[in-house]
């Protein structure tokens, strides 16, 4: 039973998850692009590569905007969170070994203790964001249940992943939880607020273009 489930999650379900993630992301961006062509032609008329990149650069650079300097703790947490979020799954030795077994390709990986620490930073980040949602009145006002669910959806695959890695009690079950929750996370990215990953370059780039090319002002 466990074995069948493992086989399913590692095999067909992984493909489904990747397909939904990449297909869904492609679909969302393409659909939005078409809608923009139809209803928001203004976006294309005013977009400027230089000013879009200028703005994106300032907002991807730690402390590159005034608001990031106004909120140093949030800035550090948000950057560490996002960086670890991307690096851990892509450069974890356990993942790379699985990929090598399947396709015989591999790339350098993170030392295990570093990956472990980074995992906990992601989890701590989720904790920090959740605490902010509870403590800070304006953020609490904006928060809906889905915001907590999204944080949970991120925390679960990371916690269960380390659980399996450290072979803590009931780790085989943790492995299954890890695989299932990670696949769910991948699949919901295009269809929830996590799609901010897809749309960030567009919204920021558009505003950068309007501010830079038309309004001759800075937007960071």
């Amino acid at each position, binding site marked *: 039973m466990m074995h069948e489930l493992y086989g399913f999650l590692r095999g067909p379900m992984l493909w489904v998850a990747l397909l939904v993630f990449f297909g869904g992301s492609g679909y969302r961006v393409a659909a*939005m*692009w078409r*809608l*923009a062509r*139809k*209803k*928001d032609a*203004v*976006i294309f*008329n*005013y977009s400027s590569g230089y000013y879009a990149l200028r*703005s994106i650069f300032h*907002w991807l650079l730690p402390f590159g*905007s*005034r*608001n990031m300097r*106004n*909120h140093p703790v*949030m800035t550090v947490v948000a950057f560490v969170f996002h960086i670890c979020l991307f690096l851990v799954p892509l450069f974890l030795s356990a993942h790379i070994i699985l990929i090598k077994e399947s396709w015989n390709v591999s790339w350098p990986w993170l030392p295990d203790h570093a990956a472990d620490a980074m995992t906990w930073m992601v989890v701590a980040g989720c904790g920090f964001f959740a605490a*902010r949602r509870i*403590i*800070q*009145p*304006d*953020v*609490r*006002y*904006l*928060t*809906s249940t889905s*915001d907590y669910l999204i944080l949970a959806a991120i925390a679960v695959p990371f916690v269960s992943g380390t659980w399996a890695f450290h072979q803590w009690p009931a780790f085989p079950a943790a492995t299954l939880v890890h695989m299932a929750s990670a696949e769910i996370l991948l699949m919901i990215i295009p269809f929830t*607020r996590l*799609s*901010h990953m897809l*749309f*960030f370059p*567009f*919204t*920021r780039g*558009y*505003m*950068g273009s309007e*501010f830079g090319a*038309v*309004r*001759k*002002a*800075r*937007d*960071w």
Partner: protein
Amino acid sequence: MTKSLPTDLAVIPDKGVDGAAARLTPERVARVIQILLAEEGGARLKVYTETCVHCGLCSEACHFYLSNDKDPRFAPAAKVKQTLDPMIRKNGRVSVDFMKKACEIAFTECNLCRRCVMYCPFGIDISYLMLFVRRICHRLGMVPQYIQDTAHSHSATLNQMWVKEDEWIDTLQWQEDEARDEIPDLRIPLEKQGADVMYSVIGPEPKFRAQLIYQAAVIMHAAGVDWTMPATPGWDNSDMCMYTGDSEMMARLKKVHFETAMRLKTKRIVMGECGHAFRSVYDVGNRHLGWKMPPLPMVHAIEFYYELFRDGKLSLAKKYDVPLTLHDPCNVVRGRGLHEMARFVIHKTCTTFIEMHPNREHNYCCGAGGGVINCGPPYAKKRVEGNRVKADQLAAAKAKGARVIIAPCHNCHGGLEDIVKYYELDMEIKFLGDIIYECIEKGEVDS
């Protein structure tokens, strides 16, 4: 930390809003919202409302939020949560009372100042979303009475203040007469074909501040500018329809303004010291007419003054020596980056300049813009109390010695006057043109 928040839906009584509410049914509300979401709500509406991660990083950008003791309901993203979000989620099936509150939020709790755009990591444009709400209100006929009256004036007379054509011409000739007492050969050239500059102003100038036209004429004269003003509708560059959600009328107003300049074969338009008018001509109205950029060159007075000083067209009789500070108006600073040009002119004409903080693109809005002051007396107290941070910012500049505030925008003038009075700041507010007029050599044409 978490004091209990008022959750009432109390709205300020307003004839325009209440009258519409009495006529509306929930079915009609739903239908209008559905039509607008389908017809006019595009990718921006979708992406902005769907990618906002509810992080609250935009909250502290907003003077309403800061001034109302950080009441969460005034955070920029919270304004969307209270208006557009439920409309979209329920596909328009919201109550008439809900719409009244949404109308009050969109019209009187957001100046469309776009400061929060610079604080949101995604560049989510709350002012675009609030304008969308106003558009819905407009189509429901639910607009605060005072600002709707100015929109009616725009429709009927093509100016904001019910100024009749002969009154307009009379005012210009009266100002010319007055000015000729001071400078005998001064003219306010009407309807001159092919002049270098067509000077356009907002409706309230002939109505309440005709002195500004006088001053502009003196500056034009002293700089030897080849200029004219139109004698026909089209002289008013202001645009309250842009703020009531009446895009069609806005486009019509801008068309008349541009066409007047073209009829006069003028080389470019120079606009008086107004911010919202500049936004409507430079950024919004032209787009609705299908012009990527305005169809003929146009500049705001700040840029025009900057050029005159840069090119040595004006000489000074004296420098203005009262210590002063500058309020950077949203629509020409976040809207056109004229902040350094304004400082150039100030440094040319004044001895002691004191920066207020924050400044330039990060300056706080005056609280009057975006049509909020035009919603009139019912909302005045809320508006002024909703901008206590501006008072604090001004008081800090005053503590450093500033006694005068330069505000190169009509709306900012109105807003700052109310703030100075309410918070007893005892500071004087001036246009850049007031200072230039006072300091330049007026007599000779300097070529």
